């Protein structure tokens, strides 16, 4: 990509967002821009933006909407948006835009084609008009990151019965990440848990299913919460003073300033890392990055 075009996860470009932006602004009366966090390198200025676009990694799957609703991501903070780190690889959350503009465009499954056809609107060549428009809309807005849908879908093809089409559309099995975390992704649904950090003003949510190991989870969390450990965050959320580096956070975490704990199904707070990863993801209800001092006090260390 020469110039990364910023998109939210549905693939709407900047032009689309201001209108939505206004509505959500009105809705909560928050000064979103002021508190917008960017994880750029210190001293860099993120380009002036009207809206909360992010550098979305090419998560093509979002276009097809196979992921379960990101409404979960709206918990608490609602409209917090974080731009991906310039190095990429952040698994940060993407605040969803309600798909108003794109007509629920995230769902490109066949159930749509079914309903369109019932109108008898099929024409030669046998192409579903509505699908074409949807697809065209997506691709015109989302070029670059969201792979443009190559062709419009054909009526009644592939030959799959409506019942199966509708069932798979309503309950999509899983989706693949463009980054190739295929193995980690497979399995039903996602597993969002809240992550809190002592001293941070707001929580985050992560999808445990997208990680395959403790290492991946902890580095993702480190990136996500790095700004808080520097001390004072400026009102713009950009770290001031010394440069933020990953290693500093790691040191902080490993230097026993913080420990990672989780609440399990029984409501107990446990230290992360004792049980096999799969068992952990199955029993973890929420995560908390706890100050070591407090952890010691709880008798965990």
């Amino acid at each position: 990509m020469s110039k990364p075009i910023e998109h939210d996860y549905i693939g709407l470009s900047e032009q689309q967002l201001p209108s939505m932006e206004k509505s959500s602004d009105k809705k909560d009366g928050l000064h979103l821009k002021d508190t917008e966090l960017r994880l750029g390198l210190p001293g860099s200025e993120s380009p002036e933006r009207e809206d909360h676009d992010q550098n979305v990694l090419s998560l093509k799957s979002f276009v097809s909407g196979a992921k379960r609703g990101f409404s979960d991501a709206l918990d608490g903070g609602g409209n917090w948006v974080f731009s991906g780190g310039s190095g990429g690889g952040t698994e940060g959350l993407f605040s969803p835009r309600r798909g108003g503009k794109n007509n629920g465009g995230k769902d490109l499954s066949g159930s749509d084609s079914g309903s369109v056809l019932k109108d008898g609107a099929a024409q030669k060549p046998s192409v579903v008009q509505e699908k074409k428009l949807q697809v065209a809309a997506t691709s015109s807005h989302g070029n670059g990151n969201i792979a443009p849908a190559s062709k419009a879908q054909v009526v009644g093809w592939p030959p799959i019965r409506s019942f199966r089409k509708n069932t798979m559309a309503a309950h999509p099995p899983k989706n693949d990440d463009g980054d190739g975390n295929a193995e980690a992704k497979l399995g039903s649904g996602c597993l969002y848990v809240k992550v809190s950090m002592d001293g941070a003003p707001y929580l985050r949510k992560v999808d445990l299913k997208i990680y395959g190991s403790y290492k991946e989870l902890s580095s993702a969390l480190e990136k996500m919460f790095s700004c808080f450990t520097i001390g004072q965050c400026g009102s713009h959320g950009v770290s001031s003073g010394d440069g933020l580096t990953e290693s500093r956070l790691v040191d902080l975490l490993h230097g026993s300033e913080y420990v990672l704990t989780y609440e399990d199904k029984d409501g107990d707070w446990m230290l992360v890392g004792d049980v096999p990863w799969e068992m952990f993801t199955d029993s973890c209800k929420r995560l908390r990055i706890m100050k070591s001092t407090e952890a010691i006090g709880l008798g965990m260390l």
Partner: protein
Amino acid sequence: MEPSELKRSKDSPNSDESTRRSSFPDEVLERVLSLLKSHRDRSSVSLVCKDWYNAERWSRTHVFIGNCYSVSPEIVARRFPKIRSVTLKGKPRFSDFNLVPENWGADIHAWLVVFAAKYPFLEELRLKRMAISDESLEFLAVSFPNFKALSLLSCDGFSTNGLAAIATHCKNLTELDIQENGIDDKGGSWLSCFPESFTSLEVLNFANLSSDINFDALERLVGRCKSMRVLKLNRSVSLEQLQRLLVNAPQLAELGTGSFSEELTFRQYVELESALSNCKNMHTLSGLWDAKGIYLPALYPVCTHLTFLNLSYAALRSDELAKLLAHCPRLKRLWVLDTVEDKGLEAVGLNCPLLEELRVFPADPFDEEIIHGVTEAGFVAVSFGCPRLHYVLYFCRQMTNAAVATIVQNCPDFTHFRLCIMNPGQPDYITNEPMDEAFGAVVKTCTKLQRLSVSGRLTDLTFEYIGRYAKNLETLSVAFAGSSDWGMQCVMGGCSKLRKLEIRDCPFGNAALLSGLEKYESMRSLWMSACNVTMNGCRLLAREMPRLNVEVMKEDGSDDSQADKVYVYRSIAGPRRDAPPSVLTL
């Protein structure tokens, strides 16, 4: 006794009617013929001579009508006075894929009215692709006091209210099988309509429905129907509820679970596993909606005697499938989603040597951007491990000629070969050549082939091969294939046993259509849509062959001279009178 033996004994004396009758009373003949079940055998028997025709018609209790418009209910009733079981199929198969207009027809009601008058002791009705309303279901429920079995597959036009009527009135019901229908699900209260005194149900399949049912009512129903052998639940039934049902029904032979994904405590898991392991007769397992890998081990005790495992609604990973299949050595039929990928299919090849049928459905059929699923490698792996494979339905995004050649070399006994390369007209992805040689290999090697669905980039050569080699072929489905009329002509000329031909989006025109002139009367039906057939061609066909119904479905805004969708079928009932305005009978 074989019909041929009977024939010999009849032929030896001279065929004097009175002599024959005295040596072989009609009652005996009827008694013998009543043991014949296959409708094809019966059709053959009825052609032998007039006496046999009569004996056969008086002894027939089950009638199978493959095309509801090929005959009228009155004609059926006149010929077969003692019918207790009817199987009826209606719309062309492509209606499953939304290619047939909504109000096309195939309404059951006229049939029911005749049956109520002529077959008041009707016991079984099995419908496929018919339109059936709630009123019809109510009529059915009250008109036949002995009614036992209702099976609806891929039908539409009714709601759960109709099911409520069945549950309420059919005191002797043994089977209620609702599969893949376009049903208006208004709620689960229909299930509560089975009276508390009702105990005869043996088959209950409501997996199609999404609404919650009253679980207590279901639990009591299953508890008192001691002969229940088939139970297929819908997604709203939880794992914990499943366990409660199973403890009361360990005799089940076929189980469709509900949702397989909620959180279970360890104790609940153990109880579920225990309940499943008590089901010693279970040979078929399906459902497993949203199956979570960690609970699959609960199925292991059942897996050892499973012959049919339907995982096509459970998005399993390859490792999850592999672990499960290690416990399924006796599996004969397996349906999966392509989430298992090639690695999962390797596990199939390694663990299921007795496998006869494999169906691989696409989890994301409409998303071209996501490249996963299965490839030719998975299919090849299965073929090496499963030499008895004879039925395959395979959705994939890439295939090669060489792979298919290998596959049929390993499995020469294919009777049903349905390969769907999902991108229309896609060539061999390695050589970039058409897939002609693949299907050529199939028809040359698999001499028992009855059903074939082709896909990928195909020239007329494929159809030359089919016409030349596929001598047992009965059903052929073609889409986005062929180069000219010659392709279809080869098929019409060569496939002597062809009964059903369905074609879409192919460059076959009038010459191709008319090349089958002589043939259509020996076939059940022909479907051609988005081809190059014109109205004139259809008119010509209709004129030349008066015993065929030639129907054209017009689409809005299309050229007047083009015949967008053509459906041709033989009929002794004449042109139908219930066609909607968009369907023209020529």
